């Protein structure tokens, strides 16, 4: 039985791994499309400021910009650890 399993076992399909990794990174890239160039910098600096008070992870800060009729809304989402 063991031998049969061994023979049937397929080598991990690397193309599938590539596809999964690409789907994630491309979705991330697209979410940033059309946003102002300063957004990554703004996100980094916000992270630094918050870290002066609370220790948070790199992915705890989420910002996005939404355009409405005549103004843009900056949405800031910070996940703080339970104290």
């Amino acid at each position, binding site marked *: 039985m063991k031998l049969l399993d061994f023979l049937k076992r397929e*080598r991990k*399909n*690397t*193309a599938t791994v*590539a596809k999964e990794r*690409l789907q994630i*990174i*491309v979705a991330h*890239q*697209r979410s940033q499309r059309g946003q102002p160039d300063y957004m990554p910098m703004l996100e980094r600096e916000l992270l630094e400021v918050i870290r002066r008070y609370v220790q948070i992870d790199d992915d705890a800060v989420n910002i996005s910009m939404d355009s409405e009729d005549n103004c843009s809304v900056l949405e800031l989402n910070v996940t703080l650890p339970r104290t």
Partner: protein
Amino acid sequence: MAKIIVVTSGKGGVGKTTSAAAIATGLALRGQKTVVIDFDVGLRNLDLIMGCERRVVYDLVNVIQGEAGLNQALIRDKRVDNLHILPASQTRDKDALTNEGVEQIFKALSEDFDFIICDSPAGIERGAQLAMYFADEAIVVTNPEVSSVRDSDRMLGLLASKTRRAEQNEEPIKEHLMVTRYNPSRVDSGDMLNLDDIREILAIDLIGVIPESEAVLRASNQGVPVTHDSDSDAGLAYTDAVSRLLGEDLPLRLYGGQKKGLLSRMFGGTRR
């Protein structure tokens, strides 16, 4: 009014220049008046792939800076009527290209040509952005490999935002996917992204699949665009892509990568 098509990819070495040369040649062979322009200022190579490197006198930058007329800089292809090459400068820095200068050239070329093919440099710097800025259509050249696919997605983002059509809210640039260096047997063994995966991730229409082929290196060695090698796998694949570019509804055919049968393995196959 000429149709302006940019051949772009983001990543280097995926086959932009090979594709630009092959497509321009294919269009001219179909009777379309075509000019292919090298935008890779400082690292020109299109002239070499087109086999006209010893006939370059003036280049794109000379024309933009008024040192030569457009007709002096255009090189007439030796093999096909209707085909002209506008080489890039090898010495100047890339700031020599200006938006206004490029626009003037397109305007002048539009009167005489049916197609203007722009061979973009790699990267997302000025040369690449200028090559795509005035485009009506884009051919995004992608290898079945993660970094190339990711970079292609970045280029799609730029095509949708940093181009004239985007800035002026005109009808968006028509985007085509061209997969190059495709190896069906590696796809079968699960070690290469397949066409559907790439199409699904990038979500644009496929205009052609060029197999990984010995014919491509043979073509560049000789400076004869691979379209002329008309019964090679890559040549056939580019010819199909050109037909689709001209609006024909051609079913997808995969060339190359056929598994060798017992007989051909024993007695040696053809050279392809």
